């Protein structure tokens, strides 16, 4: 899939995600829109995994530590063929396996997440298992920047470099907002690059909505025996003007009218992208 095709798909995925959040009456809209380009890149260009190989011991692993943005993951995985798109009509319904955070009940999801600060330690275990077996698989996790206030991340950050886990990639969805407001006001965590480097990680900063940058950064394995942190600078609510950089859209659910406005904007963006290439 070309970078252009990825960018076009990202618009379709955003529309799907917004529709499913609207139908479910619940979801994490802003963070979903900030991380969906990362997920699109992972599942369509980077991860060595497919719906047919979810049990292959050599598959790459992806664990979504910021589990609340599961709607973006559902949209990407349905598109990739892990489960029928129609299943997404049941998200958050009574007894639906498609609950509001990732669970292993869903084909292709590796671990149950949702409580923050859990994904990175789990990925360390997976990466250690890979090292013990001299396996070639890689382990990826997606962290939120608000999530970094959880101390368990820093326990894991320390241990990952201690154990030289260069088969481990953490991607930080750095959208700078969390439920209460700006992350720097809630609990300042900058300078993130210096902190992670001080913990022994290779750190790269990219535009988390720029496909060439995403593909390049996510395709490069870490070097020098170090785990890799990719700081993906993103915009919460990216792609829908009235949702961008507005904290209330953290878990805001679009009304019928808001959904229509959002879809219209995304339709226009899709048209513009197609015309740009034509």
């Amino acid at each position, binding site marked *: 899939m070309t970078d252009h095709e990825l960018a076009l798909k990202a618009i379709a995925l955003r529309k799907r995600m917004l529709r499913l959040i609207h139908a479910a009456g619940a979801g994490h809209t802003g963070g979903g829109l900030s991380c969906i380009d990362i997920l699109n890149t992972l599942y369509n260009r980077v991860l060595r995994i497919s719906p047919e190989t979810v049990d292959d*011991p050599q598959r790459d*692993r992806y664990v979504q530590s910021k589990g609340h943005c599961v709607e973006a993951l559902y949209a990407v995985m349905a598109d990739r063929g892990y489960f029928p798109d129609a299943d997404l009509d049941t998200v958050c319904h009574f007894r639906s396996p498609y609950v509001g955070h990732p*669970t*292993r009940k869903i084909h292709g999801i*590796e*671990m*149950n*997440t*949702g*409580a923050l*600060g*859990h994904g*990175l*330690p*789990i*990925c*360390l*275990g*997976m*990466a*250690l*298992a*890979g090292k*013990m*077996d001299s396996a070639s698989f890689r382990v990826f996790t997606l962290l939120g920047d608000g999530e970094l206030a959880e*101390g*368990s991340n820093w*326990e*894991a950050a*320390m*241990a990952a470099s*201690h*154990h030289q886990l260069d088969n481990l990639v953490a991607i930080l969805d750095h959208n700078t907002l969390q439920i209460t407001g700006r992350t720097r006001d809630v609990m300042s965590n900058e300078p993130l690059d210096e902190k992670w480097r001080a913990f022994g990680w290779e750190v790269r900063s990219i535009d988390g909505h720029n496909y060439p940058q995403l593909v390049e950064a996510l395709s490069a394995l870490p070097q020098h025996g170090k785990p890799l942190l990719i700081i993906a600078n993103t915009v919460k609510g990216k792609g829908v003007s009235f949702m961008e950089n507005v904290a209330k859209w953290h878990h805001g659910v679009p009304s019928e009218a808001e959904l229509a406005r959002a879809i219209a904007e995304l339709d226009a963006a899709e048209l513009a992208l197609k015309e740009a290439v034509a």
Partner: protein
Amino acid sequence: MSAPAPSMFTPAAAAMAEKLGLKKGRANLEEFADTLLELARADRNIVAVTSDSRGSGKLAPFGQTLPKQIVEVGIAEQNLVGITAGLAAAGKKAFGVSPSCFLTARSLEQIKNDVCYSNVPSVLVGISSGVSYGALGSTHHSLHDLAVLRAIHNLTIVVPADAVETRAAISFAAQATKPVFVRFGKAPMYALHANDVRIDIGSAVTLRDGRDVAFLATGETVVHALLAAAQLADQGVSARVVSFHTVKPLDTAAVLAAGQDCRAIITVEEHSVHGGFGEACASALLQAGVTPRFKIVGFPDEDTVTGAQADLFRHYGISMEGLAASARDLLKSK
């Protein structure tokens, strides 16, 4: 040199043990460490994870013998459990080993979510549990672990009484396809079972039959119940002793049988009287409409007295003398 730990047994209790032919066995901790090393030698997929706890877990020989099968995470119990879960999810048989006081409190959320909810076959080993670190204060006691873990779905909870039960627990855990928690202390235990006895996780073992009172006991308290039963026999009271090495799933049939056969039941555990083994038995009995006289012996809801494990057991009535007195009182009560 620190002072030697006081004996778990008074001279009278030690004499009774001798009369019963009980032999001093090994500490459950030592049996655990040897069993794990033995299993891991045969199965290179077994991995131990420690949080600066390989000394307290007697796993230094494991680390020296199988350095590629041990992961050190430093003093970071949340990370220990998350890593153990991740190793298990990636196909390893991972044993996370840490003092139970830290393992089951600081990393409770990781146990709940990463291990039990995610349903990966991790084994969590709570060493120096209960009041093994009795003199160190409540920071180091785990008198809450059975209560909190009982309320979490998808976890087998095993509290072995002696080396035979410990070996059975670790062997079971190594084969389990679901999460297992095992906790024990570090003091030498009397051997309660013959070496060749078969221990089935989930099935309680009757060590002595009786019809007046039943001691339903778990873990390192079982021997005291056995000695108390022997003392009661000398006084004409017939006491049953059942070792419940598995706290969850509870062998409800054994609990109900005791309630139907005996006039009184005394449960014994190295744990708070709230939410632990005793309340699990009470719940099973009441819901089945079986209502013998009933007492839970454990650690009361108070600022726990500190001292060696043996001192605390005696203080709180977990001793031959204390349990026999409890039985006499309960049988006398109206």
